[in-house]
């Protein structure tokens, strides 16, 4: 068992919508999906990365007050959350596949200094860069 970061969470506007996006469109797998009243702990995993979970959380009670939750919903929708990077073997192939599934791309695959990257957003507004792993 290695040490390190096990889970990082994203805020999403709707957990069902986010689950559909990350699983059906991006190919992640549901890892944990547990409910307690209105609260839902939902994480997904990349199939090649079993030691890391991506959490998909809705800002709101009981962990956040209504005003803070509203501010976070606004920030997510404005694309103000920190950058996210998805590493892929073949950026152009992943772009074609994801685009066919309806992923909203913000930048077509672009080659810079031998590396190819593209940009997309999840339905909530979280921005991802998709970067092709450097071939060595």
């Amino acid at each position, binding site marked *: 068992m290695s040490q390190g970061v096990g889970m990082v969470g994203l805020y999403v506007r709707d957990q069902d919508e986010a689950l559909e996006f990350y699983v059906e469109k991006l190919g992640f797998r549901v890892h944990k999906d547990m409910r307690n009243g209105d609260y839902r702990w939902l994480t997904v995993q990349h199939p090649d990365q079993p030691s890391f979970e991506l959490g998909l959380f809705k800002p709101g009670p009981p962990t956040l007050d209504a005003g803070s939750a509203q501010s976070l919903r*606004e920030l997510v*929708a404005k*694309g103000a959350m920190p950058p996210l990077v998805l590493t892929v073997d073949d950026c152009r192939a992943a772009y074609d596949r994801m685009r066919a599934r309806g992923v909203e791309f913000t930048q077509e695959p672009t080659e810079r200094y031998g590396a190819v*990257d593209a940009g997309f957003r999840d339905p909530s507004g979280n921005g991802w*860069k998709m*970067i092709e792993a450097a071939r060595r």
Partner: protein
Amino acid sequence: MSQDPELLRRLLRAKDRMDAASHEEWPVRRLARVSGVSEAHFARSFKEAFGIPPHRYLLTRRIERASALLRDTDLAITEIAFQTGWSSLGTFGRTFRDVTGESPGELRARVKAAPHELEHVPVCFVSAAHRPDLTIAVSEKRRQEAGSRIESEETEVP
């Protein structure tokens, strides 16, 4: 002031489209259509959401892109002006100087001579780090700079 997250998500789409094609023309009509709001509401809602009017935002992206091309390529300045959405080299040079404080040629000479301290950051994020922080209109910036020049000249008069 609170804004509807659904509206913000659609305004973000207009911002993303300007990011993806900052060299294109983005009249309010086109941006409003991307966001699915009326032309009358678009500019005000965008400014409220992102703290900057849509066309000033577009200007910052064009300057950022031009700076990157000056830094990373050997393209002629005329070609860079054309590629980043300006139809006149004179307007490009003047606006570039007003926003960044130096001419395109000066910026190129300076960055080519300096080491790249951001080279370990993914390239796609580096250009965002060089985006000009244009908190006032370019015309206002010109007025302020002209004003300060006049003041300093006056104080030098014995």
